[in-house]
């Protein structure tokens, strides 16, 4: 089947099997390997991307379901050589270690801050509860999301 979609502002077309998972289209056909795969049951969130602004787990979306959609992946966060405040905050607050869950965390965090620009700690914890991290114990991820929120509200984005 033919699909047309936009990823990080770039248009792409591809012929895909109806069963092809979106995450495989992104990683293997479009070579956007920042989106990771950590499970097959939608639990880990390493594959989280934005589809028309909403976070989705791309291991549980068929490529054909993304036809005509605007997608955003971790590769789309940095604009004109400038890191998104979330990226900068994950680095400054030590919100990552092995880096495997990080792209999914960043995308979930990005969508969340659009809805809730000044979240409490508990709100951040609830928001990222669909993304598993095995390294950080979440403390610094929560700090990083709140730090990014503060940066954005001060006009840092």
């Amino acid at each position: 089947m033919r699909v047309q979609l936009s990823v990080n502002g770039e248009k792409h077309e591809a012929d895909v099997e109806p069963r092809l998972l979106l995450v495989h289209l992104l990683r293997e056909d479009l070579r956007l390997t920042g989106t990771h795969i950590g499970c097959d049951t939608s639990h880990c969130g390493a594959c989280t991307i934005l589809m028309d602004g909403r976070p989705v787990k791309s291991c549980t979306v068929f490529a054909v379901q993304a036809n005509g959609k605007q997608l955003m992946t971790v590769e789309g966060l940095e604009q004109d050589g400038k890191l998104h405040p979330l990226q900068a905050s994950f680095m400054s607050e030590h919100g990552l270690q092995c880096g495997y869950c990080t792209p999914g965390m960043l995308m979930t965090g990005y969508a969340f801050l659009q809805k809730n620009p000044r979240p409490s700690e508990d709100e951040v914890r609830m928001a990222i509860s669909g993304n598993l991290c095995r390294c950080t114990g979440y403390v610094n991820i929560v700090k990083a999301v709140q730090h990014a929120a503060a940066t954005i509200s001060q006009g840092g984005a």
Partner: protein
Amino acid sequence: MEPRTTFEVGGMGHSIKRKEDPRFIRGRGTYVDDVQLPGMLYLDIVRSPHAHAKIVKIDSTKALAVPGVLAVITGQDLAKYNLHWMPTLMSDTQMVLPVEKVMYQAQEVAAVLATSRYAAADGAAVVEVEYDPLPVVIDPHKALLPGAPVLRTDKKDKKDNHIWHWEWGDRAATDRAIAEADVTVKQDIYIPRIHVASIETCGCIAHFDKVMDKLTVWMTTQAPHAIRTVFALVAGHVGLAEHKIRIISPDIGGGFGGKVPVYPGYVIAVAASVLTGKPVKWIEDRMENLQADSFARDYHITAELAAKKDGTLTALRIKTLADHGYADAAANPSKFPAGLFHVCTGSYDLKAAHVEVDGVYTNKPPGGIAYRCSFRVTEAVHTIERMTDLMAHQLNMDPAAFRMKNFIKPEQFPYKSALGWEYDSGNYAGALQKAMDTIGYADLRREQVEKRKRGELMGIGISSFTEIVGAGPSKHFDILGLKMFDSCEMRIHPTGKAIARFGTKSQGQGHETTYAQILAEELGIPAKDIQVEEGDTDTAPYGLGTYASRSTPVAGAAAAMAARKIRDKARKIAAHLLEVAEDDLEWEPGKFSVKGAPGKSKTIQDIAFAAYTNHPPGMEAGLEAVSYYDPPNLTFPFGSYICVVDLDSGTGEVKVRRFVAIDDCGNIINPMIVQGQVHGGLTMGLAPALFEEISYDEHGNVQGGSFIDYLVPTAVETPKWETGHTITPSPHHPLGAKGVGESATVGAPAAIANAVVDALWHLGVRHIDIPITPAKVWKLLREHGVTG
């Protein structure tokens, strides 16, 4: 410790930002599955639905008819090359692919090679395997009963399921001390089977280049050099020589011990690539990862602790059944079948101890790896910390005061334990006191009394653990005969920038940053000017890899030693440049100055340039060194954790209200990274304490084989960790450092379990096995009439 270098230089003690992060926050890391090679084939694996069954027939007809499927590989195919079995790290054997029978549910049965990931999966779905089920052995106690089905029928003369017996310590003295004790406590403790569940699963791309006769394997391994040697030893007879094998361990998405072993999938991929001459990718999915990769723990322990009436501990006796699944594929140093379990006297000055462990075969996956710990130290710490708490409660003494009374005192170090270890340094009372002050221990005890009057269930748990890491001294520590040294090779370029390569492999610990900081500390070259590389066996010096918190104690020490060799040569060059004797020079980080004439100096950068442009006559050019560091002893990090829990008497849910962790890992390289390691370690201690378990029903069906029911904690269940530290340097480590990656995973479960039992002690509850699920607590509450 105040930093000796400026933040710009970024030596020890500075929280500089990680060099790894710029690529990871952009999604630009390179993990194994990110590597794509032209013409790459894909492997998928057919797995057994049975826990124990004869293979009657494997029919590949339908699979081979699937478009894109090229081959179905079975044990019979590998047997032609004698590759259907492989050795484990513990001198046992395990199957790559079975010929006669399967030994656990989810065992590899056949592999399908295809031109795409999807075709390989399609093929695997239609390989038809006929099984003849055999009796299943799940309970290790029953496995040892006379008449139990013998599992390892491949071993001639094997008449039972007993693998080995191991014991340590003075049995007679221990028995005598326990017989003479005023008070003893005895407890069965089960530490369940769990899985590291790194968010990246395991996988590889094997590429055998038929023209160059060279095998390159990108793989998720924590120990690339050892893997290369293992491949050469196992497959030497089919022509794979060690200089023609290159293992590349790229970015690793978490290891925690699960990426130490060689799994059958790797070997099949290598075999498939050697046969086809094409790159072959194998990436396991999450269910394969949880159901078939090496497990951790699974120790059935019976412990007895003895004390005098006044609360002085005297002796410890432990008997354990170690359930190894169908093969002993533990990742332990060769001489230690039960790892370092005999550090089980912990932080206490016990005069006698004896420990026995028996390894047992069952119909479960093989393993026995250390889930973020140093070779069974978690099992040891959980046992002694539970038993200590039990004894304190039994004697009606406060568990903190009881520990204070029995701790090894600072002046007793170096301390020889009853089981023969020489603890390097410690101040256990200092760490516990700091934890008590931080959390407000006395107030919490008062609050608990008040709450108990109102029928509310609140508990306070302590764990004052001692770890044993940094394996290890070559006298006792080897894996397959390879001594457990580690290495650093450093080259300084003419402009004063440098590259340093190591035999270890980071999986998130931040080696690129911390190793650069060690070198910056020793040489004064800014950390940002030092490129750190690991994980490529064609370029890095040989080392045993990263696990058991050995990177800082061993490879970190190698970095310091290599830098000091470089400094020795730099001194000679500086003397030449300044036209003074070497003895007339003094070093401060970054430069040599003439004593008494501080203006007369040469920076390390000046010296590096001279090493290539103006080196002294008779001296070799260049400025580089390599060190293979053989540690004189292990290091013994420690800490005290205090946990406060509130129990919901209606649901049995355990809520961790506060958790204070005071760690002592000796001198600290990067405080930010150390704190991050503790945060992560604590969460991997919380996980088995409350949530994670892989169990089996009587038919050998795995429970907890996916993220649906293997409960990795999310941000919601994870408390906001409160951390702090004391600093007691290791006297034998060149930097005074000890290692920290695993302390918290080792120490945390006992603090949580002790807190829950503390909340329920007045009801008569004496012990709860982890994971302490709401169902277990609710059942106890019902039994004790608390809830209806």
